[in-house]
């Protein structure tokens, strides 16, 4: 039973990490759905979210619930300007130029923020707004425990996802988003403002990444301006894994990536954890190129 409870606790840790990946993956999947753009700068919005939260907590002593709203607003603003300044002028250019621009934006955000006058390139301890405590449970002889950090992460992620579902499937704006991802030209003829819809998508995605940044800071309390690179890439892989452009696919993909990463670190070696994701990705892409939840497409 010792062994079983160890596995369960590792799975819970994996879900904790996976929830953060899921939040980032949603932004990737929504932007890709609309513009067919791998927005490499998305991981850096996640980093900005963590830093905004850091400054709000440590400099201004903002209460935690306000931190969430303020960070989401600031990240949404960052996403809005990113799209307006860098991506909009290239909307009709070849997609590869857009991708290179996204890499440019990503590098700019990282190195601009690592300037001494901005966030500095050092690791900074993230101030946890509360003490960590754990609750122990026993189910059928298997012991396991939840920390309050994990409960917070699951609750916030679940709540945010519910809001996102309402937005995408129950509002006019959400319908517009889904329509634009199907056929931009027809949608424009129907009198839907594509520019507004794209901006909104970027803002929602950025806000979700911001939430991910705060949660990541609370769970792994060390932040750095380059912290967004690997989670960014892994989240994109998660989005592809679940089927790009599909919201629940991104969530499931994120959880799979998070859990497998933690399990491999726990049972093999933490240095192999980045490799296993590729193996999973490769298997999924070869068996089902459109991802776990993707519809069959003839030409991908």
């Amino acid at each position, binding site marked *: 039973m010792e062994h079983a409870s160890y596995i369960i606790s590792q799975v819970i840790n994996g879900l904790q990490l996976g929830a953060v990946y899921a939040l980032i993956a949603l932004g990737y999947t929504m932007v*890709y759905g609309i513009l*067919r753009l*791998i927005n490499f700068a998305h991981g850096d919005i996640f980093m900005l979210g963590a830093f905004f939260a850091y400054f709000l907590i440590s400099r201004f002593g903002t209460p935690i619930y306000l931190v969430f709203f303020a960070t989401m607003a600031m990240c949404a603003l960052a996403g809005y300007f990113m799209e307006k300044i*860098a991506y909009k*002028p*290239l*909307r*009709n*250019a*070849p997609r*590869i*130029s*857009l991708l*290179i*621009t996204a*890499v*440019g*934006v*990503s*590098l*700019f955000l*990282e*190195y*601009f923020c*690592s*300037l*001494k006058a901005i966030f500095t390139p050092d690791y900074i301890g993230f101030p946890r707004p509360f003490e960590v405590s754990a609750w122990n449970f026993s189910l059928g002889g298997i012991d396991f425990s939840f920390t309050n950090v994990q409960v917070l992460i699951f609750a916030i992620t679940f709540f945010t996802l519910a809001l996102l579902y309402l937005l995408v499937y129950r509002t006019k704006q959400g319908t517009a988003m889904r329509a634009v991802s199907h056929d931009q030209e027809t949608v424009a003829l129907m009198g839907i403002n594509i520019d507004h819809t794209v901006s909104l998508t970027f803002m929602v995605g950025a806000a979700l990444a911001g939430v991910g940044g705060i949660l990541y800071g609370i769970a792994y309390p060390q932040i750095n301006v380059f912290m967004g*690179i690997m989670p960014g*890439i892994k989240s*994109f*892989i998660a989005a*592809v894994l679940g089927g*790009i452009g599909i919201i629940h696919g991104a969530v499931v993909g994120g959880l799979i990536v998070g859990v497998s990463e933690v399990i491999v670190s726990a049972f093999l*070696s933490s*240095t*192999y954890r*980045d*490799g296993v*994701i*590729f*193996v999973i*990705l*490769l298997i999924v*892409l*070869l068996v089902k*190129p459109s991802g776990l939840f993707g519809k069959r497409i003839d*030409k*991908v």
Partner: protein
Amino acid sequence: MKFFLESRRLILLAAGIYIVLKLLFSFGIVSEYIQQITIYVFIVVLAATGLNVIYGYTGQFSLGHAAFYGIGAYTSAYLVKTLGLDSVFALPATLLAGGIMAGLVACVIGIPILRLRDDFLGIATLGFGILVRVFFDNSDRISETLGGSRGFTGIVKLTNLEITFVVTVFLLIVTRNLISSRYGLFWRCIKDDETASASVGIDTTRMKLMAFSYGCFLAGVAGALYAHLYTFLHPSNFDFLRSIDFLIIVILGGMGNIAGTIWAGVLWVGFIEGLRIVLPSNVLDLRWVFIPLLLIMLMMWRPYGLMSKKKGNG
């Protein structure tokens, strides 16, 4: 013999460039540092040409080119170190070994992943890049010589201007000829329309695999040259950003344009290293703030590459 006759103008041009560079180097007009950068430019151009064959000519999107560059570098460095081949005359053999290793790995990995298209292929190659990085990080478990995450140290410095120049020019001419050959025609067909190419009887799977392996072979040779130039390899030299570097050069030069790749390689490396010299040391941090901004502006100004006649949107 026909090979040399047909490309005699290029060879003459290359010889001219070589004489100018050699004069600059041997009279000490340029510093040791600039000499190294000059050799590095050739290496980058060679690797970027490999990506150009894969992406620019055959249309197979790869975000993991640096992985093959790294495989070539590690293979060659390992061979030289374990077999004690520390003479310039053995270098061509180890360069070839590095290239062949990269090409073989590309062939094995290409069989499954080249079935994917566009961004999905990009993500698969990106993932492969991460996997290779993980492998390099853990390579000290296989052999202590490889150094793992501490880096591969103590590689003999063998790369000089002559060998880099000859290898790069030779492979560029071979690539040019290959592109205008029957196979090159097939590659370009596949880029334009894969389904149509298959329908006129082109074996698209084989042709794609061939282009991918050849491109990665070039990257492997370039990586081997790199290993013996800087004498130190670290897994972080071959990560995602390096792949992006090659991609930037291909895009700036214009897809499917070898001359463009050469110019873009010279300009890109020249600009990055030039800023290091021009900027005063107290604002050196700003270098990587300027570079992405320049990149974004270039993309807005010339989305089809610097050498392309097409301007602006559309």
